[in-house]
């Protein structure tokens, strides 16, 4: 059984997550008055894509060092795919890298931009799904998970249904497919977040907290993308990209933290090993010393009785 993390540590982690979310919403509130933010849209997407590639490689490395954790395999494949899709999206949008810092006044939903979001949300959900085998024995938690997730999925189906109806009667005239796909990916993200929260592995492992951090910011990104807030369209697209950027940074920190943790664990193991070896050497020396003392005592006893000379004579006679 793994050690639980200190409760204060877990509390501070979740408090910092809430503070980060609040700070980001604060940024969103004032983003309308920040002039430079729109010029960084393509650049931040590109950097996010590169980060996603890094995360993918790190996750695959983690999977190959510990092959039982299938969720690392899915996270790795997912992020590699997302990174490539994001970078392709930027290159296609700009028609090259020369316009990297130029804001475009696009007023339509780019259908390709929804691809990477959906792919990532599905992959994150699957990563939770394959990682939950550990808790299969706990019936209550499984039932709770099923109930909560069923409720969320059902509410989403109702939401999409109402939305479709409104579109049919002509009340909503936006990029319908993108919004539906966006809503579905939002649903997968919420389900994955619920799954990770209910699995409670964050009580034992810091990395699970960083996955929750990632999912929270991805949900925020999706909320900005759809868009649910009362903000300018361009700002919401921008903030959606920034939220993803912070989500990736969070997971990267998680990976680095986990690698640091592994090294620290290794140092402790090496120290323990050295300590045990030292103890073994000490014990060996003591046993040898005791044996030598015993032998010396036996020799002196035998010599005093004259039996040593008799033994030597017997040996000489045999030769």
């Amino acid at each position, binding site marked *: 059984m793994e*050690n639980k993390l200190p*409760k204060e540590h877990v*509390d501070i982690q979740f408090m910092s997550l809430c503070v980060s979310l609040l700070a980001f919403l604060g940024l969103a509130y004032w983003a309308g008055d920040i002039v430079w933010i729109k010029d960084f849209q393509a650049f931040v997407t590109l950097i996010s894509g590169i980060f996603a590639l890094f995360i993918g490689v790190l996750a695959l490395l983690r999977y190959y060092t510990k092959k039982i954790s299938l969720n690392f395999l899915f996270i790795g494949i997912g992020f590699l795919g997302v990174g490539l899709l994001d970078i392709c999206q930027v290159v296609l949008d700009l028609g090259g890298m020369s316009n990297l810092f130029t804001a475009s006044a696009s007023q339509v939903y780019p259908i390709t931009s929804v691809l990477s979001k959906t792919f990532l949300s599905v992959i994150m959900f699957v990563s939770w799904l394959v990682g939950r085998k550990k808790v299969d024995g706990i019936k209550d938690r499984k039932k709770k998970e099923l109930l909560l997730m069923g409720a969320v999925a059902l509410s989403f189906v109702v939401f999409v249904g109402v939305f479709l109806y409104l579109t049919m009667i002509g009340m909503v005239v936006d990029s319908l497919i993108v919004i539906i796909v966006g809503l579905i990916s939002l649903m997968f993200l919420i389900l994955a977040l619920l799954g990770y929260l209910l699995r409670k592995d964050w009580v034992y492992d810091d990395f699970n907290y960083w996955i929750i951090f990632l999912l929270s910011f991805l949900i925020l990104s999706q909320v900005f993308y759809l868009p649910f807030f009362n903000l300018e369209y361009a700002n919401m697209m921008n903030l959606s990209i920034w939220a993803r950027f912070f989500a990736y940074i969070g997971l990267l920190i998680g990976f680095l933290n986990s690698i640091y943790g592994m090294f620290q664990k290794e140092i402790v193991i090496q120290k323990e090993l050295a300590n045990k070896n030292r103890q073994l050497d000490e014990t060996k020396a003591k046993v040898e010393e005791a044996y030598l003392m015993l032998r010396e005592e036996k020799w002196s006893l035998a010599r005093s009785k004259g039996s040593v000379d008799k033994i030597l004579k017997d040996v000489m006679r045999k030769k």
Partner: protein
Amino acid sequence: MKRLNTANDASETPRKSTFLDAMVGVSIFLVIIAFAYMIMNPGKRAADVRNSQRNSDALAIMQSVLGYVNTTGNIPATIPINRECASIGNEICKTGATDCKNYIDLTAILSDNGLKSIPVDSSRTDGNGAGYYITHDGEGSIIICAPLAERNVTISIKQFMY
């Protein structure tokens, strides 16, 4: 990973733990409030209203200038020729300002039937300027802009006078 202590040790500091639990609860509550606030976003609504007022004011000034040109056949001489609207020296002077030096005095376009006074931008709280800028592009068009518009909105109107 360095484990400083285990969860069992947390019971040694129940007060601290309770405080942190409460703080987590408060943070979650604040996040929900922030979400709700962003859906409403009264700040943006107010800024939109002010921007809309700026648009109306710019239009009103343009109508007055057009009226003046229609009556006299000339563009007011105080309006400088400059293709860049929001530049120094293009700001319209407030009605009743103490000094209109370095500002554009448009008293000539005011009339009892039309614009009675130059509207003042709500963000322009001090000085003699109205916050609205006016320029003549040298090709018969007048440009009026409101560079103090909020949330990165560009408010600029161009009208050919003849």
